[in-house]
C-alpha cells in the first residue's frame, strides 16, 4: 500500500488562490443561487496561543444542505481569508441533521478547516448550533470532554448570525478533530 503525500503549510501567500466571493455560498452567480433554506452567517475570530489574531489563515467550510444531504445538489463548500483581526465570515444555509454511525443522528453541523503559515497540517473542527435539541445525542460531540464542548458550539448573535471563535492554542483551546 502507498502512503498519502505529506501535508505542507499553505504558507503566508495562499491568497493568490483566494476568491473572496467563495465565502458567500449563496452568491447570485454561484452554484447555489436561489437555493431554499434558512439563510445564516457563520462568523468568528481565530487567535493563536498568545492571543494574537491569526490574520493570514485560509478557512474552509464543508456542510450538508438544509435537509442534511451531501449529494443533492447543494454545493456546501466555502472559503474565506481571515482579516487583520483574525475574522472570518461565511454566508450560507443552515444545514440539517445528518445520519451518524449506526442508527444515530448527528446534530446540524458545519466542518471548518484551517490552513495557515505555521500549520503543517490543516486543523479541522466543527461548528454546531447552540440550543439545537439534537446536541444532547450527537455521537461526535459525545466523544468530546464535556468541559471543552463549548468550543464547538456557535452562539446566536442576532439577525441570523452565528458566532464561533477559534483558539488555536492554550486556554480555551478549540477541540480539533482527527478525521
Amino acid at each position: 500500500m502507498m502512503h498519502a503525500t505529506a501535508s505542507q503549510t499553505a504558507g503566508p501567500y495562499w491568497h493568490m488562490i483566494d476568491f473572496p466571493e467563495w465565502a458567500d455560498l449563496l452568491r447570485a452567480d454561484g452554484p447555489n443561487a436561489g437555493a431554499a433554506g434558512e439563510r445564516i452567517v457563520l462568523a468568528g475570530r481565530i487567535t493563536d496561543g498568545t492571543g494574537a489574531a491569526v490574520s493570514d489563515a485560509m478557512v474552509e467550510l464543508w456542510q450538508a444542505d438544509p435537509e442534511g444531504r451531501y449529494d443533492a445538489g447543494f454545493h456546501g463548500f466555502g472559503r474565506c481569508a481571515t482579516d487583520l483581526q483574525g475574522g472570518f465570515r461565511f454566508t450560507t444555509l443552515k444545514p440539517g441533521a445528518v445520519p451518524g454511525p449506526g442508527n444515530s443522528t448527528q446534530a446540524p453541523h458545519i466542518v471548518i478547516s484551517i490552513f495557515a503559515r505555521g500549520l503543517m497540517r490543516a486543523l479541522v473542527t466543527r461548528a454546531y448550533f447552540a440550543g439545537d435539541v439534537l446536541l444532547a445525542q450527537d455521537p461526535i460531540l459525545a466523544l468530546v470532554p464535556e468541559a471543552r464542548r463549548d468550543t464547538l458550539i456557535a452562539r446566536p448573535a442576532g439577525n441570523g448570525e452565528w458566532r464561533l471563535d477559534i483558539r488555536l492554542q492554550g486556554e480555551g483551546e478549540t477541540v480539533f478533530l482527527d478525521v
Partner: protein
Amino acid sequence: MADPIPYRPLAEGSQPPYDLPAYGSTHARHPKAAPLRIPQTLTEVSAPRFAPTWYAPHEDLSTVDGKAALGERIIVAGRVLDENGRPVPDAMVEIWQANAAGRYHHPRDQHDAPLDPNFLGRGRVFTDAEGNYRFTTVKPGAYPWRNHWNAWRPIHIHFGLHGAGFAQRLVTQMYFPGDPLLDLDPIYQGSGDAEARSRLVAAFDLQVTQPEWALGYRFDIVLRGRAATPFENA
C-alpha cells in the same frame, strides 16, 4: 443506513507534526492537545464536487494575455492516486507559486526581487479519468524568509487538492530534485520520515519534456485511501 467505509488513518511517519520547533510559526499556532480522533461519518467521507463550470480551469501559468513570463518554462504533470493505487478522477488541483525571481504576486511579499507583469502564479487543473493532471508554468525562484538567520526556502510549488472525500483534502508543496536548500529547510526536513520527504520531490522526466519547448517534471500525489472493509477507527 450502513456506516460509510472510512479512509484509513494516516500512516505513521507519513505526515509532519503540528509542533515543529525548528519552524518558528508553529510555536504559537499548534494545538497543545492532540486532535481528537473521531469515527468518519457521512460528513468526512463526502466532499464537495468542483465542476469546471463553476471553477474554471487555468492550465497555463506561463503567459498573461499571450505575453510570456520571464524564466525557465516548465511542464509539471503527474497522477493523483489513492493509497490503494486507484486513480482519483475529477480532483481539483489548485497551484500557486513565486515567479522565476522568487517573488510572489502578493502584496505581503516584500522580497527585493522583481515582479513580473506576465506571471500571476496561480492555476487550477482537474484530473482526468486516470487521475492525470498537467500544467505549464515557469520554474519558481528561491526566496529568503525570516525563520532563522540566512533562511531560504527551497524552490517549490504549492498544491491544494480536493478529492472524493473530505478526509482526502490535501495542501502540500512540490520541490525540485537536487535543490541544495532542501537539506537546510525546516519545513521540508520536518515533513515525516525520509520516504515521506522524498515523495515531495518531483522527478525530471524526459517523457513530460516537450522538445524545443519546455523541460518536464513529474509529480505524483497520493491521497488517503479507503479501508477494504469497514472497521472501527474511533
